[in-house]
């Protein structure tokens, strides 16, 4: 008897809960452009980028419509609260301050860092043996600095630069054997540069979390728990069926 009562009550609570939350046919995303390669416009003016493509794929998986609304970064959380849009997918790093205001999905992305070396370098894999005694460049005070200092500080010479530009200059000068950089920054400054002759060795590095952080999440209003869990499920599916990797490789591949 008691059990039956509990189940009934639970069921009632569930019905009441779902009645309270809105059912969405269309989800409007707030996004701040440009922030290449996460979100930007093509020369034709169309929105594209990793966030946009992943967002559209998630909506398709859930079976709802996606709309993108451009909003400046300053007002992006207030815009969510005032129902200008229903979610934010704009390279937003998950942190405690924001968690007090919004509900985050599971992290969908951590900005990868990567090792860049000259094309003719004999470092084929970043490891203690190959980097021993080498000159490694990092930007001072960044998470890459902390990672390299702790992992390789004992065995290699870590050179710390004030800006990424100084570091790239010294790489071109031949003073550095390898640099550890945010992948998008390294791609635009080293891989895509005119006379640069560099390559990435090893894979994209996003772990451990203590260095690289929680990554980016989709932000929802706190009451939209249903919507958030739908997106979490869809994200897990996309990661499983390879769609996620496909989009990831489109924007973050080693190839020039």
């Amino acid at each position, binding site marked *: 008897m008691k059990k039956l009562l509990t189940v009934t009550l639970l069921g009632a609570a569930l019905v009441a809960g779902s009645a309270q939350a809105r059912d969405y046919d269309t989800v409007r995303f707030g996004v701040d452009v440009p922030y290449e390669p996460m979100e930007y416009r093509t020369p034709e003016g169309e929105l594209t980028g990793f966030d946009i493509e992943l967002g559209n794929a998630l909506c398709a998986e859930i079976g709802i419509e996606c709309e993108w609304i451009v909003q400046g970064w300053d007002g992006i959380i207030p815009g969510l609260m005032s129902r200008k849009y229903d979610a934010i997918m704009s390279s937003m790093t998950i942190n405690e301050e924001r968690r007090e205001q919004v509900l985050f999905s599971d992290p969908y992305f951590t900005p990868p860092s990567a090792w860049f070396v000259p094309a003719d370098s004999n470092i084929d894999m970043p490891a203690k043996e190959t980097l021993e005694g080498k000159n490694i460049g990092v930007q*001072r005070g960044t998470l890459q600095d*902390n990672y390299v*200092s702790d992992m390789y500080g004992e065995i290699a010479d870590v*050179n*710390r630069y*004030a800006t990424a530009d100084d570091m790239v*200059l*010294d790489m071109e000068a031949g*003073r550095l054997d390898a640099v550890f950089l945010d992948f998008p920054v390294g791609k635009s400054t080293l891989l895509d540069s005119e006379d640069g002759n560099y390559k990435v060795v090893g894979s994209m590095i996003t772990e451990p979390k203590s260095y690289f952080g929680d990554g980016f999440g989709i932000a929802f209003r706190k009451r939209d728990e249903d919507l958030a869990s739908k997106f979490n499920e869809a994200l897990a599916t996309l990661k499983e069926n390879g769609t996620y990797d496909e989009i990831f490789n489109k924007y973050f591949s080693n190839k020039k």
Partner: protein
Amino acid sequence: MEQLNIWFTNLLADNTIFNAQTLEYYAEGLATTVQLVFLSLVIGLVMAVPLAIARGSRRKWIKMPIFFYTYIFRGTPLLIQLYIIYYGVVFIDGIQDTWLWLILEEPFYPALIAFTLNTAAYTTEIFHGAIKATSKGEIEAARAYGMSRGLMMRRIILPSAFRRALPAYGNEVIFMLHASAIASVVTIMDLTGAARLVYARYYAPFDAFLFVAMLYLCLTFAILYLFRYLEKRMLAHLRPQS
């Protein structure tokens, strides 16, 4: 004593910044700073003496290039000079294939070159001024004794000029120590570099920089003390006799 011990232990109880690792950074930074400053001062001094004598020459083609050199190095910020020597030289085509690159590849030597040239320029002017200020009576007396120019320079002018230059040179040494703080912009881990590393690691600017400021103060104190001792000995003849 025991109370002091307890007080000290409590003081350091929740300290996470000054651990063995960071103290090692500071110690290495201290060694690098002292090395860099000491070497550039010694080389700069050795360069400055002949330059100061030649700077006072009556021949234009000797005097002018040295004036030009001191003008350039005293007229531009040391930071700019360091940037030019460290980053600028890279743009000379093919420099990586010459023996010069062996020197310029490590950040230490470009910094040493910049600091040396800078301090040599200032020291040249300090000595030049001191030589010029030699009282004409001393020179006339030396001439009356039939001394040659070389002998006069060695026995009369330089000894008294060095003594006169001592307080100004002491200042230059301290300035050089403080100017060396910019070495960290070319990745050298000097004292300031160590402080910046600790700051970036623990987000504790106050502790990191206060500690390094105290180390600089200690170094300055040692320099001050040395020069005070030297002045006391070398300038004894100028003090009023009691």
